[in-house]
Each structure stands twice: as structure tokens, then as C-alpha cells.
């Protein structure tokens, strides 16, 4: 499996991958998980936060097919957590927004979720998110998700703190929380998932220095 870090504007190959990502996200979040607010007639899940601020962490298999992804958006720019999901946040962020990022649209290709194996795609994304966060000098990552993420995160040795009480949303227990970013968190998730190598492409990933910096660094 290979990690691609895609920002906009990207090169042609990355744009194609990004387009596949939008289609797959629509299939996962709208068609399978029933998130109707995201439904679009063109079958692409693209929202206001898929802009130049967003970084997409995309995983492809050995044949080059997209098998999972996540979106990371800065917290000092408009983001999902502090707009759409603001009602779930009651506590303070653990540090200045520039030190954090919001993790959204985490998914694994539906065909890869079958069976009893521990999905390596999901394991790779967990590792990739922590590795990326460390490389960007972040100290925390926020997320809003089903409450089960608390179990999956703590099971890989991450420290997770709720930002508000869990609430029922569309019949699903939902929570906003933040994950502590640390070398320990990376080493724990690597040990538990058995992914011991770095996933980020070589030295092509300098920290994003300015919000909205329109650089790209994709192999």
C-alpha cells in the first residue's frame, strides 16, 4: 500500500486520484452510511472544505487503486468542527488552533471492509494520520465521529479526550474529541498495527508553512 499526500492544486495524476476519492466518498458516506446532507446529483462528495486548505491522505493498493482516505483541514481556517459540528464542542481546544488540525472523511473502500481481517487500509490510515500530524508539527487532531472511534483509537494506544458530551445524532451516538499527537502515539499505533515503516513519501513533505499555501508534494 502506498500513501499519497494530495493538496490542491495537484498534478494530473493526483487530480485523478482526488476525483476517485470524491466519488468513493459519496458512495461511502451518502450511499452506504446515509449521510443525506452530502448527497449530490453528480455523485461526488465535495464540500466547502475541499479547498486549497485541505490535505488529502489517500491510500492506494499495489495495483494503484484507491482503497481508503482521509481529509485533514487546519483549525485556524474555516473547518467542519467549528461550523457544522460546533454544537458538539463544549470544551476548549487543548492548544492554539494553529497547533491542531481536523480529521474528516475517514473511510476505507467498502470492498475492503469485508471479512474478519483487521483492515490493513484502516491501519495504514491511522499510521498515516499520526505520521503526517507529527511531520507538520501539530500537537493534536480533532475529529467528529461515531462514538466507536474512541474504542478504535484507544485500542491503538492513542490518548483521546472528548470535546463535549456524546449525543445522539441521526440515531447514532456521536462525539467530538481530540487525539494527542506524539512520537509515543505513532510508535504505539505502529506496534499494534504491525506497520513499522514510515508511510510518508520521502522528503517531499515540508511543513505547510502558511494557511492556504497552494503547494503540492505528491510523488
Amino acid at each position, binding site marked *: 500500500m502506498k500513501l499519497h499526500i494530495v493538496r490542491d492544486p495537484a498534478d494530473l495524476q493526483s487530480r485523478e486520484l482526488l476525483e476517485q476519492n470524491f466519488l468513493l466518498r459519496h458512495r461511502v458516506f451518502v450511499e452506504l452510511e446515509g449521510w443525506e446532507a452530502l448527497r449530490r446529483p453528480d455523485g461526488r462528495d465535495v464540500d466547502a472544505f475541499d479547498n486549497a486548505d485541505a490535505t488529502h491522505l489517500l491510500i492506494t493498493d499495489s495495483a494503484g487503486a484507491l482503497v481508503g482516505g482521509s481529509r485533514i483541514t487546519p483549525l485556524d481556517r474555516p473547518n467542519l468542527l467549528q461550523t457544522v459540528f460546533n454544537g458538539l464542542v*463544549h470544551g476548549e481546544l487543548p492548544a492554539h488552533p494553529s497547533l491542531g488540525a481536523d480529521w474528516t472523511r475517514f473511510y476505507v473502500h467498502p470492498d475492503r471492509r469485508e471479512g474478519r481481517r483487521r483492515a490493513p487500509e484502516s491501519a495504514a490510515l491511522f499510521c498515516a494520520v499520526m505520521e503526517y500530524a507529527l511531520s507538520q508539527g501539530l500537537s493534536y487532531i480533532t475529529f467528529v465521529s461515531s462514538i466507536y472511534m*474512541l474504542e478504535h483509537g484507544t*485500542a*491503538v494506544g492513542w490518548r483521546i479526550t472528548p470535546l463535549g458530551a456524546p*449525543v445522539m445524532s441521526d440515531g447514532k*451516538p456521536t462525539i467530538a474529541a481530540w487525539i494527542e499527537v506524539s512520537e509515543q502515539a505513532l*510508535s504505539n499505533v505502529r506496534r*499494534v498495527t504491525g506497520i*513499522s515503516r514510515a508511510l510518508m513519501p520521502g522528503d517531499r513533505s515540508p511543513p505547510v508553512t502558511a494557511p492556504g499555501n497552494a503547494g503540492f508534494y505528491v510523488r
Partner: protein
Amino acid sequence: MNADLMSTIESIQHQTSSDAILNVMYAALGEYGFESFIVSGLPDPGVDVRPFVLLSGWDDEWYERYTSKGYVHLDPVARNCFSTTLPFDWSDAPYDRENDAAARRVMQEARDFGMDEGFCVPVHMEGGMQGVVSLVGKTAHLDEKARLELHMLSLYAHGRLRYLNSPLSRPVVRRGITPREAEILKWAATGKTASEIADITGLTPRTINQHCENAQKRLGTNNRLHTVVEAIRHKLITL
């Protein structure tokens, strides 16, 4: 969220033994009126549950009986975990009261051990594995807020226990490099380029690069600088 709950969550995540988590959970669950609980994975039909149990606060005799007689496969509460993602009261676990004598017997025996009511949290893990946190005690007084809090606490406990039980033996990135790699990294640490190191060692620049890449793989690092830093940090080279 109230401060007690936040500190319980914090505490669960800091514990490094199952016993310590048992104590933290007992203290927290007592506030909600629960007496004991169990945290376990749920095996496939016919498989012994004992290796899946992460933590048991059950009465010893009942635990012995339940696990040795394969009750987990008959128990309507355990079975219902496979059909719902939401927590439920034991009394709401469906079964055929007329015809399912085995299920009826398990429920009756549980009552005989004073476990007639409880709250069950199914845990769906990645890869389709199924777990459960089952709390023993009365549930009628629980409102939605309390139920969500118990749900959350249970998931933290399950996740932390799963982490503590994960195979620690898995080779933590092998922190070993060969003497040749160490020698080359030492030169790299002093700022020498591949071709300079090649001149010093009598190897080709290509070989130097290959050694660096091998060391990078072994250490799970991203680039040459990262490799040198990690090698120093783990005292694989001294300058």
C-alpha cells in the same frame, strides 16, 4: 461533560494493567448504580470464550459456570450484540421464550446469581470482530445522558484493555543496523555527501546510498537526516 467523568476517562487511559482498570471502572460505575461488569470479545459459535475475556468483575462461581459451559453461545444478551450497534438493557435482548430452553436457562441461572438486570454495550471492532462490555445492575433510572456516558466509558475501557492486550512481542521496529551502515551514517552525521563518503570508504556512491536506504528501512525513517537522528537517538552510532 462533568469533571468526574473527564477524570475517569483520563485515568482509564493512563492505566497499564487490567486490575487497575477494574478499580477505576468499579469506582466510576458505582456512581451509576452498577455492581460489576465484564469486558470480553465474543467468539464464533462453538469457540471457547475464555481466551477472549479481557476483564471480569463477575462472581467467580458464575464466571466459571458461564465460561466453561459455553453459555456465551446461548446467552440472548451476548447473541444480541451481533445484531445491534447500540447499547441495550439485558431485558430487551430478544429470544424465543417458549422454545429456546437453553437461553431461558442461562437467563434464569444469571438471576440465581443475583444478575437479573444489566446494561450491555456491544463493541464493533475493525475487521468485523465483536466485543462486549456488560454491566450488572438496575437500569430503570438511567436517562439518555447517563446511557451515553456509560456507552462512552465502556468503549474507553474496552479500547484500553485491547491495547494492553495487544501483542507486545511484535518486533517494535528492529533498532539494529549493520556495522557498515553505522559507519556510513556516522560520516553522514558529520555532513559528508554520498560521494565524499565513497571516497573515504573506498565504496561507490551507489553502495553508500544503498546502505543508507537499508538503514532507513530498518529504522522506519523518512529520509537521510531522519535516519541519522534516529540512529543517534537510539545510540546505534556515537559521534
